[in-house]
């Protein structure tokens, strides 16, 4: 006769804690392990020096700066418009969102942030939301691949490809878009772009549902990420986390709602928050944010002033010759426009003296620009508040006590980009 035996399996956090307690009696030698800067799970060039007691991490010291290019120094030496291509290379998974953030910051300094034409605002919102979906897809795909679920990575890249095609159609470039200009965008939407975008939205939700079936209730996935690296509300605020990492800890703070800019007040969307603050919550928040971004996109497609082919000739740039470049045919025929073009290209947009900070809800968190101007076309000082940099500073705290095999899961759930972290 078969005997039935009950086996008690505690949850992973309790198991880790119990294992740590057991190990405290064993005064083993600590081993120092170097992770990165070239490691597939560090998503770039992050180096972490881990101190191990057996399999348990006792100390983690992140070492950043391998991708430091001195963007803030460069910004002090060129006009505001010339810096736009550099913003592509901050968070290179969401260049369109960086373009929007930077343009809005300079426009705040100029005092024209509330005078942007409505069509321009809708275009910019769509850019930012497409960038959010694209960045979250890569973050999700890479996270899943590090956990061994390679299928999700491949599927998410199929969807990202469509977003790259959309970016290519509006800006001519797939990665280095440089789409916005101070006071507007480079050019209006091309014909048929909104239909293409709608098609993407229609196809994306079923694809996202498929990713969910692969992960959300997958036993292996849930066991690996649930109750792992819990960040409490207090810690999340104290360490200055932002974006999905802050909301994953249960704090409902989103700059699109709390400090509304562009046309976000006219759009309906929800802010997902986590309950526990573990890796699984951060994953769920990103999944829901992609759905909400699709919802925003669909509303924008319906509500955009001028519609698909802009028959009513809605402007996409502010009508100020001292800020945006005049139409080319006028430059060739009219003295005033010629002077404006010449001054804008050689001297840059003349900004008033003063200082501003503008924070934008980027896919990774709050991308902020602090601009200190002494007047003229060049900033005196520009500080970039990079969300990845701030989010990574919590690593020494949450790594301690976890297992070495969990490092890749925690890094994947924090979802950072080193181009932005190191600037």
């Amino acid at each position, binding site marked *: 006769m078969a005997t039935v035996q009950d086996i008690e399996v505690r949850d992973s956090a309790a198991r880790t804690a119990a294992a740590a307690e057991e190990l405290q009696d064993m005064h083993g030698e600590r081993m120092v392990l170097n992770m990165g800067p070239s490691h597939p799970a560090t998503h770039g060039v992050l180096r972490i020096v881990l101190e191990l007691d057996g399999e348990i991490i006792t100390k983690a010291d992140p070492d950043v700066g391998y991708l430091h290019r001195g963007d803030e120094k460069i910004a002090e030496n060129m006009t505001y418009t010339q810096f736009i291509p550099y913003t592509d290379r901050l968070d290179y998974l969401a260049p369109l969102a960086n373009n929007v953030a930077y343009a809005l910051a300079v426009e705040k*300094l100029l005092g024209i942030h509330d005078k942007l034409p409505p069509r321009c605002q809708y275009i910019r919102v769509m850019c930012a939301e497409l960038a959010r979906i694209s960045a979250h897809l890569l973050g999700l795909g890479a996270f899943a691949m590090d956990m061994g679920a390679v299928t999700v990575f491949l599927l998410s890249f199929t969807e990202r490809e469509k977003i790259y095609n959309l970016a290519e159609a509006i800006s001519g470039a797939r990665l280095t878009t440089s789409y916005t200009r101070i006071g507007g965008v480079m050019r209006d939407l091309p014909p048929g772009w909104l239909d293409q975008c709608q098609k993407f939205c229609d196809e994306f939700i079923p694809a996202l549902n498929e990713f969910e079936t692969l992960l959300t209730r997958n036993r292996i996935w849930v066991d690996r990420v649930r109750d792992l690296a819990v960040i409490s509300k207090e810690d999340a605020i104290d360490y200055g986390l932002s974006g999905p990492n802050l909301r994953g800890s249960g704090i409902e703070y989103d700059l699109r709602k709390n400090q509304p800019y562009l046309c976000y007040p006219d759009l309906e969307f929800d802010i997902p928050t986590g309950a526990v603050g573990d890796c699984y919550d951060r994953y769920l928040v990103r999944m829901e944010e992609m759905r909400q971004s699709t919802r925003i996109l669909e509303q924008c497609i319906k509500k955009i002033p001028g519609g698909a082919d802009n028959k009513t000739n809605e402007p996409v740039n502010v009508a100020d010759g001292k800020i945006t470049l005049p139409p080319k045919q006028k430059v060739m025929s009219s003295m005033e426009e010629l002077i404006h073009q010449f001054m804008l290209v050689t001297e840059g947009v003349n900004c008033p003296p003063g200082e501003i900070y503008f924070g934008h809800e980027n896919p990774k968190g709050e991308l902020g620009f602090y601009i200190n101007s002494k007047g003229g076309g060049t900033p005196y000082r520009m500080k970039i508040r990079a969300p990845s940099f701030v989010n990574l500073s919590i690593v020494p705290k949450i790594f301690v006590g976890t297992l070495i095999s969990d490092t890749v899961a925690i890094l994947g759930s924090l979802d950072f980009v080193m181009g932005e972290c190191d600037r």
Partner: protein
Amino acid sequence: MSALETAQKIKAKFGDLISEPAEFRGEITVKLADAEQITAVCEFAKGQLGFDYLVDISSLDNYGDDPRWTVVYHLRGLKHGNELRIKTDVSEEKSELPSVLPVWRTANWHEREIYDMMGIRFSGHPDLRRILMWEGYPYFPLRKDFPLAGKPSELPGIAFTKPAPLEGGPFVTAAGGKDAISREPRIRNPEE
């Protein structure tokens, strides 16, 4: 309570140390006269006025002016949604002010970055190392007297330590300057 009212409360508490709140584009800035008091001011702002979130710390090099450094703190209260900027000057001889790490732990990396880029030290910071540049790098690259092209350093084996080459590209121009050569920012020597 608006951001201006919170600034008035700080002024009421610290008196002449705090300047009149200045407003620009809807943002409130106050200036603290004595940098040694920054931790006390921040503790008051966090404890009494609900500024629980430190958004950013940045630094300014007022090259040619005295005092040379300005450190800029950007505070936010997540509950009431107000923002406040506190600025304080630090002289070049001293180049040191207290750390706000006991108030917000996110200050850790921000202060390390300012030390790395500008060379301003934060007393009481437990781990004031370089963060973006490598350990042993001799200069502070965001200072205004550091040229854009870079300076050669004595560490040939560690990294690329020569000035950036001018031949080839990318060709950059800065606003102003009487001819194309003076518009190339990389050849400018700030010490001249």
